[in-house]
């Protein structure tokens, strides 16, 4: 039996569930890199993307195929029945007759939870508007575990802390691991205070210069142009949140730099060739972690236990 029926929100998982998935992901790494297996042979995954996505959709597709399963896609929704006005509830009811699990990305918050109430097969939330994106959080945790240390880690989150759902879910999950969290952002993109209600853990607003020499992880997010009233303001603010070689020269040798990608100019390309840069590795880790999730939701009881 699977530990959970759907994956809707990181809040639905216990620390034990998370650690279990991270450990499973580690076991799938060689398969993620090409070793053949048939764990999910005969299973079909449906990708339902009502919003564009490159890496999330492709990494789910890769994960499913590496596990020996098949993938069906609905991406160009202009061409499908959605454009004719079909409800999400009906789309889900129909597709759950075709596939053994559904990956859903949808612009409305709570759509994945609603989909799970209308589905006969597991739903995996691949982002619901400004809401949840639990597989991103799991791959972030996995990257920290693999490239640094998760338990007790000192992590600085930098950039748009107000609107970034990636950051919001990650903070919640990190507080389970006895971490110290530093928040670095322009004043108008600060983490909303009510977000910290009910969270316990060491969380502090700082400047990068104050903590660069002691952190284990620097997690950088994109500052989006559309958050600013005008281009001038955007350029002024975003320019002061750029990571370059000069800044990271003051960091610990083991400090890692992460980014959910795509980056614009938050991380100078100069940093790419340093040992600190782990953002492309992070993108790769999306495959084994999604394999672990798919396997957990679709396994029949035999397989690679």
């Amino acid at each position, binding site marked *: 039996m699977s530990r959970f029926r759907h994956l809707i*929100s990181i809040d639905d998982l216990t620390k034990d569930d998370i650690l279990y998935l991270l450990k499973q992901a580690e076991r799938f790494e060689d398969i993620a890199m090409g070793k053949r297996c048939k764990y999910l042979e005969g299973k079909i995954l449906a990708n339902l993307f009502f919003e564009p996505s490159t890496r999330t959709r492709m990494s789910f597709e890769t994960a499913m195929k590496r596990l020996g399963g098949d993938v069906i896609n609905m991406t160009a929704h202009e061409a499908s029945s959605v454009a004719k006005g079909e*409800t*999400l*509830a009906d789309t889900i009811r129909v597709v759950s007759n075709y596939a053994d699990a559904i990956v859903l990305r*949808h*612009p*409305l*918050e*709570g*759509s994945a*939870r*609603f989909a799970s109430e209308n589905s006969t097969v597991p739903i995996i939330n691949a982002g*619901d*508007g*400004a*809401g949840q994106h639990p597989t991103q959080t799991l791959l972030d945790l996995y990257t920290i575990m693999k490239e640094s240390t998760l338990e007790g880690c000192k992590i600085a989150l930098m950039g748009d802390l107000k609107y970034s759902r990636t950051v919001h879910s990650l903070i919640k999950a990190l507080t389970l691991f006895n971490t110290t969290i530093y928040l670095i952002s322009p004043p108008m993109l600060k983490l909303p205070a*009510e977000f910290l209600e009910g969270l316990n853990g060491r969380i502090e607003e700082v400047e990068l210069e104050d903590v660069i020499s002691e952190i284990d992880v620097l997690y950088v997010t994109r500052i989006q142009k559309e958050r600013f009233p005008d281009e001038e303001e955007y350029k002024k603010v975003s320019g002061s949140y750029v990571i370059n070689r000069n800044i990271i020269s003051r960091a610990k040798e083991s400090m890692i730099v992460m980014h959910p990608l795509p980056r614009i100019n938050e991380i100078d390309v100069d940093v790419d060739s340093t040992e600190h840069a782990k953002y492309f590795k992070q993108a790769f880790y999306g495959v084994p972690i999604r394999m672990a999730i798919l396997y957990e939701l679709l396994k029949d009881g035999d397989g690679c236990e």
Partner: protein
Amino acid sequence: MNDVKHLVISKIKDGTVIDHITPGLAILVLKILGIKPKSSEAVSMAMNVESAKMGKKDIVKVEGKYIGDQELNKIALIAPEATINLIQNYEIIRKFNVKPPEVVENIIKCPNPNCISNSNEPIKSRFRIFLDESRVKAVCDYCGRKLINLEDYI
């Protein structure tokens, strides 16, 4: 009874009396109970009347009908101090305080325009109710929006 001379609305023979409603919210109480324009219940209501316990209060009396506990407990969303008296033949046969339910469906409207519960899907709004520093608060089960002052969203 010694408070007869203060009664603003008459006693009922059989039915449900909701007393100690937060002043000014009786109309919302009716709404929560599903009593709307063209409803057939015999209802009397008093707003902002004097109360020894609360200063001012509202009262709602529904004649000839015993409203179920589950329905009545929803009143706690906006009037946690409300008390219920079930009346039979002018006598109180049961008296209790309302308790907020853990989950309410289709009563609170989520203020988040991007919440799936505000779309044209076949969906009921659903909120989890909790007490925080003795205030009743709610969280949207779909988008996670937290609400205080629930009376603004009913």
